[in-house]
């Protein structure tokens, strides 16, 4: 049974005011799909630029509208550009989508626990992403590819609703062309000329080329997708404590003080969002917890 994760909070976030908001400028806006977009941000003051770990999130503030938690989706190695990918589904994200290059946006963070990049040396790494779940996992892929010789096989399994919902198409193309990472994509329903895989992402797990005895899996997507993915990974022989998931809950403060993100005794914003599946699996079975 995995021990409760302890978090170490970097000093710049701890003192003096964890609610302090930094001002960032939008350098680039990318329309990924009909409802998903990516913002590339640069700190207004270079000294304000902060490092982050893959899996962490920031609270992004749209002036006068509100604040939402968004996972960081860029490279941890890139200190100049802070990247966030999000779906425009609510008041704040819809307002965020209207922002243009040169506009200012508030950033608080980074908050939360990270994917276990320190644990995976020597292992095969299986990344299973569903829908926008690829966004919080992309920093891991960057990190793995930047340190390629430290890991065994790298397998990326990615499922979306339709081919139009596939994120980061250009990067995926590049990754599919590489020999040091296996990329498999599937869609729930095909439209038009799609000749690739059709079926839920869990169907890719059975025959993915990794050694279940020596693999660590990182899974991100809708909760139900993570549940079924864990089942499929277990079927393959991956043990529960080698599976990691990323949970999502309503967050207002991001620092464990507003109470909204609670899941049992967990504050998802600071005890998560990344969890070892062995530790958190009982939560999945409890309805409305």
């Amino acid at each position: 049974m995995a021990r409760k994760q302890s978090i170490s909070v970097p000093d710049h976030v701890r003192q003096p005011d964890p609610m302090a908001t930094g001002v960032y400028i939008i350098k680039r806006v990318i329309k990924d799909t009909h409802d998903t977009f990516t913002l590339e941000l640069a700190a207004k003051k270079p000294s304000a630029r902060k490092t982050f770990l893959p899996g962490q999130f920031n609270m992004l503030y749209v002036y006068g509208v509100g604040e939402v938690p968004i996972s960081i989706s860029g490279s941890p190695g890139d200190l100049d550009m802070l990247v966030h990918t999000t779906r425009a589904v609510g008041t704040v994200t819809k307002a965020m989508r209207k922002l243009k290059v040169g506009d200012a946006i508030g950033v608080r963070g980074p908050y939360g626990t990270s994917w276990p990049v320190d644990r995976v040396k020597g292992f095969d790494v299986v990344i299973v992403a569903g829908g926008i779940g690829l966004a919080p996992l992309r920093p891991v892929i960057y990190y793995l590819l930047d340190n390629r010789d430290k890991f065994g096989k790298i397998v990326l399994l990615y499922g979306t609703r339709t081919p139009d919902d596939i994120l980061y198409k250009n990067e995926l193309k590049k990754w599919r062309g590489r020999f040091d990472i296996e990329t498999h994509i599937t869609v729930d329903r095909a439209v038009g000329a799609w000749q690739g895989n059709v079926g839920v992402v869990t169907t890719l797990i059975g025959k993915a080329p990794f050694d279940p005895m020596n693999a660590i899996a990182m899974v991100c997507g809708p909760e139900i997708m993570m549940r079924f993915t864990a089942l499929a990974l277990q079927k393959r022989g991956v043990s529960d404590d080698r599976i990691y998931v990323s949970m999502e809950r309503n967050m207002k403060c991001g620092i464990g003080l507003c109470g909204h993100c609670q899941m049992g005794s967990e504050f998802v914003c600071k005890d998560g969002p990344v969890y070892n599946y062995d530790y958190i699996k009982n939560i999945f079975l409890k309805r409305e917890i």
Partner: protein
Amino acid sequence: METLERVLKEHPFLKGLEPRLITILVGCASNVVFQPGEFLFREGGEANSFYFIRSGKVMIETFIPEKGPVAIQSRESGEVTGWSWLVPPYRWHFDARAVELTRAIALDGKCLRGKFDNDHDLGYEMMKKFTAVIADRLDATRIQLMDIYGPQAKH
């Protein structure tokens, strides 16, 4: 025949099946190749075969008049496709179209049905395997139905 036996032995679907039983299957087996665009079977046709896919990709689809061909699920190497030959009235419910050059081993359904009737051990072992595959497909289909990435979904 020898080559077929080796290929069948190594196919993931038949993992664990007694060599004696595999030899029986070989009696109904043949090597097939499908060009991209070629159909393995058509909806409504007599279902008298199933396929062990060795390489390539097959799309299970149906044609809806206003929409055109709608893909249900895809099948790749290491998987099997087609089980309507097991269930009366033995007619295909969907189309199966090769999307890439696809090599497969085709098993004659009529031949197999006869063999199962005679050798219940073989029949039982194969039914167990098919049931597992059908259960997986059912799970996957149900998740597809839930439309988890839809506009109302969390992500």
